[in-house]
């Protein structure tokens, strides 16, 4: 069944009906051989994912596509799912047909020969649904495409409107203004910080470096090039290191009980985060609902609209799947069709990568930002500014060195130490690739 499955708008079969029909036909082989129905040919796809509410999205597809049924298998988020997938691939069985994969994991998964090049099965229009910067994250080695983007996390600036008003502060539009605001806030009340530098969140730093124009990995011909210690990344490191050195922003990790307490009691009055932040704020600082506002990320040059990504996922098809074409159909439907994308926003609460398809679904703001009606409109325009980025084959290694190198730098609390940390990551990332046998450019 290579072509798109027929839709039957008038009569949607439930998954249970189809299952029953399939079972009945299998039970009576004589009937099935009459060829009156293809019910016994139902293709079953397994989908590993951790997105909330995704079962409802998949149920919609299953109702519309009786001959390609998708079974959701719920997984732990992020790295745990990657580890499990790589183990299943190595073991030679147990791998699903489809997997949710974060952008930074794609190259590692391709490198381990876990996810397939789906460029031959893609509809010609699929690429056009996504911003160039996002599409470049799933396209490697020229025209090979290894996943379809699902949601993204364009960086934006979140702040406590009430605290800003109380101290007469304006919303910073450049990083210089951000630094000024951080100083003003902290000197007005030494317990207040505009943000924190978290050495345990390499993904955020990567997004900030991406905004400044860095790409830690590049492909030069048929060789990898590592460019962690680049001018744009040094600029970002020096900026945050400088603020930490001055003591005007905090230097504690995010996602700790202490950080939650600081979000709740207002001592963290701002957060550079992604489009998915409303969910985190609602969960970790529910008492502050209505006090937060979102603005475009501060810029390096006034008037620019650049940003980077923090997190976000894709849907990939595994190498071992016997139904690659059907799996691609499903991934395209979920991430680029009007029905699929609307369901993703409404049922799963993600900020979809397909912004054109999302316009209608994103007309109302998330509940936590009920007082900011243009929340998604602004997020969509922010997402257009995501700069291109290639993730290399050892993002996991670079991120783990980041934790340690910036952990040390944070303890030393000098701008120079922050810049040095980049050199450490560069050296470690290169050494790991060379050790694996890569011939680097």
């Amino acid at each position, binding site marked *: 069944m290579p072509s798109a499955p027929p839709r039957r708008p008038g009569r949607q079969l439930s998954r249970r009906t189809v299952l029953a029909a399939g079972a009945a036909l299998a039970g009576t082989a004589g009937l099935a051989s009459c060829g009156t129905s293809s019910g016994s040919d139902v293709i079953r796809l397994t989908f590993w994912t951790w997105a909330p509410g995704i079962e409802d999205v998949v149920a919609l597809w299953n109702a519309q596509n009786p001959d390609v049924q998708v079974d959701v298998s719920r997984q732990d988020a992020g790295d745990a799912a990657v580890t499990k997938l790589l183990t299943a691939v190595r073991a030679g069985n147990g791998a699903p047909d489809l997997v949710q994969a974060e952008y930074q994991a794609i190259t590692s998964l391709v490198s381990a020969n876990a996810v397939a090049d789906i460029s031959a099965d893609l509809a010609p229009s699929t690429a056009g649904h996504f911003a160039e910067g996002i599409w470049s994250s799933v396209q490697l080695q020229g025209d090979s495409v290894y996943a379809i983007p699902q949601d993204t996390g364009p960086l934006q600036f979140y702040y406590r409107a009430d605290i800003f008003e109380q101290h007469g502060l304006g919303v910073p539009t450049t990083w210089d203004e951000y630094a000024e605001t951080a100083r003003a806030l902290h000197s007005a009340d030494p317990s207040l910080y505009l943000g924190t530098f978290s050495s345990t969140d390499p993904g955020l730093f990567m997004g900030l470096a991406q905004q400044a124009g860095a790409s830690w990995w590049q492909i030069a011909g048929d060789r990898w090039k590592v460019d962690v210690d680049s001018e744009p990344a040094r600029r970002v490191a020096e900026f945050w290191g400088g603020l930490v050195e001055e003591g005007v922003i905090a230097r504690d990790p995010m996602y700790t*009980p202490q*950080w939650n307490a600081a979000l709740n009691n207002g001592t963290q009055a701002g957060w550079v985060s992604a489009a998915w932040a409303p969910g985190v704020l609602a969960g970790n600082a529910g008492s502050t609902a209505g006090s937060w506002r979102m603005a475009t990320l501060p810029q390096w040059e006034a008037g620019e609209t650049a940003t980077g990504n923090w997190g976000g996922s894709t849907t990939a098809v595994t190498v071992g799947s016997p139904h690659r074409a059907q799996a691609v159909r499903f991934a395209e439907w979920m991430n680029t069709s009007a029905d699929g994308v609307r369901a993703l926003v409404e049922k799963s609460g993600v900020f979809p990568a397909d912004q054109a398809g999302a316009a209608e679904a994103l007309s109302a703001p998330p509940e936590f930002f009920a007082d900011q009606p243009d929340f998604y409109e602004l997020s969509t325009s922010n997402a257009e500014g995501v700069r291109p980025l290639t993730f290399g084959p050892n993002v996991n290694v670079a991120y783990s060195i980041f934790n340690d190198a910036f952990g040390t730098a944070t303890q030393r609390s000098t701008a120079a130490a922050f810049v040095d940390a980049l050199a450490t990551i560069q050296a470690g990332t290169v050494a790991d690739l060379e050790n694996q046998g890569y011939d680097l450019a």
Partner: protein
Amino acid sequence: MSSTNASTLRRRTDRFGYVFVAPAAVCFLAFLAIPILYALYVSVRREQVVGLGLGEGGRHQEWAGLRNYAQVLADPEFLGSAGRVLLYGLVLVPVMLGLALLFALLLDSKRARLRRIARITIFLPYAVPAVISSLLWGFLYLPGTSPFHFVADALGGSLPDVLSPQLVLLAIANIGIWGGTGFNMVVLYTSLRSVPGELYEAATLDGCSELQIALRVKVPMILPSLIMTCVFSIIATLQVFAEPMLLRPLTSSISTTWSPLMLIYKDAFTENDIYSASAGSVLVALATFVISFGFLRLVRGQAFAQEER
């Protein structure tokens, strides 16, 4: 006739012996021997990349000899983690066993009251899984959530941040001591209860005070138990993992390679390099053997001479 019967019976019991041993033998082979052999095999292999290393045929496995071992041993992170764990052990083992011995002697003394409740209270932390206790202590350590810091602030004082790089080792050791003292106390206390009462009577008749009985009679009598708990504690020290792993996200003072097992975990699951991870595991296992047997050899003279006497 009867002799043939007896030998058949013996043969049959022999055969039954194998049946009884079989489940344990199968489990031992499947879950211990074979994985260990496989780890040894994997530790002398490595994976090399071709070109960009993307897609099928992007990498192939090859013989590595002792290269993985050389790499692990030359890795400053590995040596650093070994040094930290050594220091951690030097803090943890004496303090934990010292407290366990003190509590055991106090409970065993004639003047002890509420013995049963005290015993359970001291033992209770051992029943709390390391994951839970690390999270609990994490809350207590973080200045932003700690009631200790709250009280100190309210009184106008201030407490040091125990998660700072200078103190974090003590913070981790404290969790281990809190959780481990009770178990060791019970082992030592049980061993104290089995010391014959005549010895105390004799010592009392000779004019020993309660303290002298404790130091001169009780401690030497339970020396074998003390040595056993010491060996177990050393092994547990080398395997410290859960506490630093769970405190790590809370602070920038704990690196991803704080202890040898964390380094092995990072190699295997973050970097997907099971080859180096296997080499590291074999080295940690070897070190455990050498240190625990070395320790036993060192103290054997005293411990078992006592028993033989």
